[in-house]
């Protein structure tokens, strides 16, 4: 692929005359997909440290039974804000950042289809999160009802700041919808003429599917918080039983959004892994077509399983059985993906650079998270696991060693292409090992805490859980502080002095249009469509 589709920069280009504006205005007014991708990625990186600090506060509080540092009220605010920011402020913007940077490069387009909209969809985010985080500095509590904001906790009993939360969700939703819209139009209309559907890199495929998921469920979330707003201020009773509503309806509406949302968080990551593993195994991806189909099937099934989050709400047995089997069915396309990655690795000429380490870490630990997911999908065992630390362990295995690991792997993988500078491999590997050890020390014991009966979302616990909680807290600090290495690596690669020229291909086994471009990538690329073999 690389030989045929060589990108040559026009020797007569006068980029200096129509390059970006300088200073802050460049970032405020930019319509360049690379700039916007960078903005998304840095934004999500900052948010990761904000929400990570909250997680560390939570872990400090849980170091010993009784009160250590935080009041129970503040503890609730910390868990709520940690969850909200990590989901909407870290994983989703980071995935959108990768999409902005890479989709035009991968499909041979000069930019996104709707560049000004692209600028807007990013710049909604800082305002949304400024609004959300500002609630911490108001008199009265910040949102304290958990990231799932179940009614009536968030309606009848919600603090005053809930209204700020509602509008910040509206802004985030608008941002995600606009970004998804842009991505769909770009992929449909802007592919290089010779880029056939079944030649699209899997990252593009998985983002296309994700974008459709976003378009389908973010409006439902917007509707859900709008109903909350109406219940709180306009005398409706969607979720208030006194007026003929039903608090359980909230859970249905929320999880109708919430379950596709978990695939929104992970599917682009599957695409990243499908790019990295073939590169470092020096083999083409095994079962490309099945990977595409599996992605689509996961997305479709994601719409019909939401009630597995609500097994203990008194659903009829037939509904419980249906949702249990439908949920377990998702293990089939996910299994296809995992087996295809393993088959790609099989008999490959492997090397273990940092992106590959994170990809392999993902493969092992995400699968573990998938298995604990199967355990909570089973109705009889879910009755025991629900609302315990087992659930916390499960979703951190799929979100941290799942989504977050794929993002980190992707950043290491494409960083030399973006910055023209190879990151420090030794530090990258140190980052990987500290992160992996920290992550497992933090979240593995939580499985056992949950099985032993420790409930989640409570700042205090019974004495017998102390040892394991202390291990978790130690792990959390290792995990948290090792991200400072990542920060250093990125800053150094982005702003440090360039020591040597990185080749176009960067990685020996890398294939795809983005690797035909010079490193660092010029500000404007593919103004004439490349030829895809």
């Amino acid at each position, binding site marked *: 692929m690389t030989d045929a589709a060589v990108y040559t920069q026009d020797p007569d280009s006068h980029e200096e005359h129509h390059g970006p504006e300088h200073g802050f205005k460049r970032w405020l007014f930019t319509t360049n997909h690379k700039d916007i991708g960078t903005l998304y990625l840095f934004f999500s990186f900052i948010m990761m440290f904000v929400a990570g600090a909250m997680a560390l506060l939570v872990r400090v509080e849980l170091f010993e039974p009784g009160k250590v540092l935080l009041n129970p009220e503040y503890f609730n605010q910390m868990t709520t804000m940690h969850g909200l920011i990590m989901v909407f402020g870290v994983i989703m913007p980071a995935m959108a950042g990768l999409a902005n940077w890479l989709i035009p490069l991968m499909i041979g387009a000069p930019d996104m289809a709707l560049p000004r909209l692209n600028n807007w969809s990013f710049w909604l985010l800082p305002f949304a999160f400024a609004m959300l985080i500002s609630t911490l500095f108001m008199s009265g509590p910040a949102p304290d009802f958990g990231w799932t904001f179940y009614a009536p906790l968030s309606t009848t009993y919600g603090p005053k700041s809930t209204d700020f939360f509602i509008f910040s969700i509206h802004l985030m939703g608008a941002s995600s919808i606009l970004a998804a819209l842009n991505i769909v139009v770009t992929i449909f209309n802007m592919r290089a003429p010779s880029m056939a559907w079944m030649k699209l890199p899997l990252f593009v495929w998985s983002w296309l599917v994700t974008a459709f998921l976003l378009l389908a469920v973010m409006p439902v979330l917007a509707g859900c918080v709008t109903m909350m707003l109406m219940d709180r201020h306009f005398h409706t009773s969607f979720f208030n039983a006194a007026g003929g509503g039903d608090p359980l309806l909230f859970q249905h509406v929320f999880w109708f959004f919430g379950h596709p949302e978990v695939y929104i968080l992970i599917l682009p990551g599957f695409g990243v892994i499908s790019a990295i593993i073939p590169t470092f195994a020096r083999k083409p991806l095994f079962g490309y077509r099945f990977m595409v189909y599996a992605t689509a099937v996961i997305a479709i099934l994601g719409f019909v399983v939401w009630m597995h989050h609500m097994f203990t709400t008194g*659903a009829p047995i037939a509904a419980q059985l249906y949702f249990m089997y439908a949920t377990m069915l998702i293990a089939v396309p996910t299994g296809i993906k995992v087996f295809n990655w393993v088959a790609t690795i099989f008999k490959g000429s492997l090397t273990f650079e940092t992106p590959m380490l994170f990809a392999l870490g993902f493969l092992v630990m995400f699968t573990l998270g998938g298995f604990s997911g199967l355990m909570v999908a089973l109705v009889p065992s879910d009755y025991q696991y629900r609302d315990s630390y087992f659930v916390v362990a499960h979703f951190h295995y799929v979100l941290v060693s799942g989504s977050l690991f794929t993002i980190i792997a992707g950043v290491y993988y494409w960083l030399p292409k973006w910055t023209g500078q190879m990151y420090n491999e030794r530090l990258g590997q140190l980052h990987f090992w500290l992160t992996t050890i920290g992550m497992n020390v933090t979240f593995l014991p939580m499985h056992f805490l949950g099985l032993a009966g420790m409930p989640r979302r409570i700042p205090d616990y019974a004495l017998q859980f102390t040892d394991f909680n202390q291990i978790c807290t130690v792990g959390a600090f290792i995990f948290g502080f090792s991200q400072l290495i990542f920060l250093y690596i990125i800053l150094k690669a982005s702003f440090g002095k360039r020591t040597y020229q990185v080749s176009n291909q960067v990685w020996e086994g890398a294939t795809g249009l983005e690797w035909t471009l010079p490193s660092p990538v010029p500000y404007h690329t593919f103004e004439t469509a490349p030829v895809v073999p």
Partner: protein
Amino acid sequence: MKPIPKSHKRLTLLLVCGVIFMFCFCYMLVPLYQWVCKQEGINGKSANSAGSAAPGMQIDYSRTIKITFTTTLHHDLKFKFLPLQQHIDIHPGERKLIYFLAENQSGKEITVQAVPSITPADAARFLKKTECFCFTQQYFLKNEKADMPVYFFIDPAVSRDIKEVTLSYTLFDVGEFIKKQKHFTQGRIDL
């Protein structure tokens, strides 16, 4: 900047329509949910309508089902609200009249509404009430005290696996949501 091509505009418009549809769909979930619950008789959604017996319903003496009654007061409602009998045994098809004692201790006149919930969910639509204080909002004077009737039967079509059913009422202060209707006290025995 180059003008946006027509094909982009067309696709964008289509997707925006999809987004608007999904927003409306979110609100369509509300009646859909009410309908499903009503069909299944779960979550108190059949509270406002009386069930009717199939013509020629026979009492099935071969089976006995234990019905347990429980009550809950919502939030900090000041009320006394208790079943006069904790539980009864009933044959499917047999009609029973039982009473709940309610006393307004809030020190003011108040309108309340009881919302029923029946477990297990699979038995919910077979417990049929021909008359119930929960069908309407109930108005109580200051310190008023009354026995509230529920007239019900278990449909013999209920699964043979069902041996016990719990009928639970939660009493809500509906002062903010008062319906315009006559104060309904039929069957109520004022004490």
